[in-house]
């Protein structure tokens, strides 16, 4: 069962496969949560250089921003820790509608 659609838990395997195909890959990992966070610590997202991604770090609220910031690390080569809190819908800010707060580490996979 290597179909990424059914293999939703195999984020690292997918990252390794992309890497082996010669693509640039970044990873995002939930490292801390407070309050009602949608995905637990350790949840991961693998991002390919064309912004294709598998896995999740939230219920879909912050993935868009995390993907962008993870792709940035492919340029800088440096990991970053990002923090997301309660969203302010009026301000169109990226955040968590559920009222939780999370910290996410984004990092490039270095060949």
């Amino acid at each position: 069962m290597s179909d990424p659609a059914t293999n939703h838990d195999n984020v690292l395997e997918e990252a390794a496969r992309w890497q082996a195909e010669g693509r640039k890959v970044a990873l995002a990992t939930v490292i801390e949560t407070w309050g009602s966070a949608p995905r637990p610590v350790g949840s991961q997202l693998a991002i390919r250089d064309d912004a294709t991604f598998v896995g999740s770090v939230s219920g879909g609220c912050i993935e868009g921003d995390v993907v962008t910031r993870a792709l940035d690390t492919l340029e800088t080569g440096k990991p970053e820790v990002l923090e997301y809190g309660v969203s302010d819908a009026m301000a169109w800010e990226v955040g968590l509608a559920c009222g939780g707060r999370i910290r996410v580490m984004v990092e490039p996979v270095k060949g």
Partner: protein
Amino acid sequence: MDAHILKKLVDDRAEKRAVVLATRLTDGIQKLLYPPEIKEEKWLIEVASEVLASDKGRVVEGPDGDWFLNPFNPPLRLILVGAVHIAQPLARMGALSGYDVTVVDPRTSFASAERFPDIHLLTDWPDEAMAALAPDARTAVVTLTHDPKLDDPALQAALRSPAFYIGALGSKKTHAARVARLTEAGIGEQDNARIHGPVGLAIGAKSPAEIAISIMAQITETLRK
């Protein structure tokens, strides 16, 4: 993350080896830890053992900055005894829920690859199969055959193990008869109480897939609550 660490991590997962990925948040330095093997500082190995046991990653303050420790335990296991109709959707739901699923049934007409594509099948007698599988605290066992010759030895083996969930298909009446047989065989009241029977959450399930949902839901409840 260095590509070689990613590759090692993927290999460890494929070989079902417990490992902790430790990342120093200040500079992104990473190490793979295999407790109880002590190749790193004692404090790091201690926290690594703890995150593996709890299966929960966390950030810890180390003498040289904050570290994030992420445990990668081998998958949870689901052992189904009886390659019956309910086992077909249940095996797939178990796999989808992240379990390493094994279906045990000595009746090869039931335990066939056509009926269970991509599922690990064992055609040994349940007592031998259970001895080989050695259920641990991250294992759920469900008996589905309705046949005491197959179900009872599997249940007795499950009750001797630290399996976190044990379920047995059958009505209240069937279950009462089963408990009477197990008591006769020397199983105590407390042990018999570990068996979820009738199996599954009471959601009025009728079809095999619905019954599989109720069982998978009860296993999840037992694991997470």
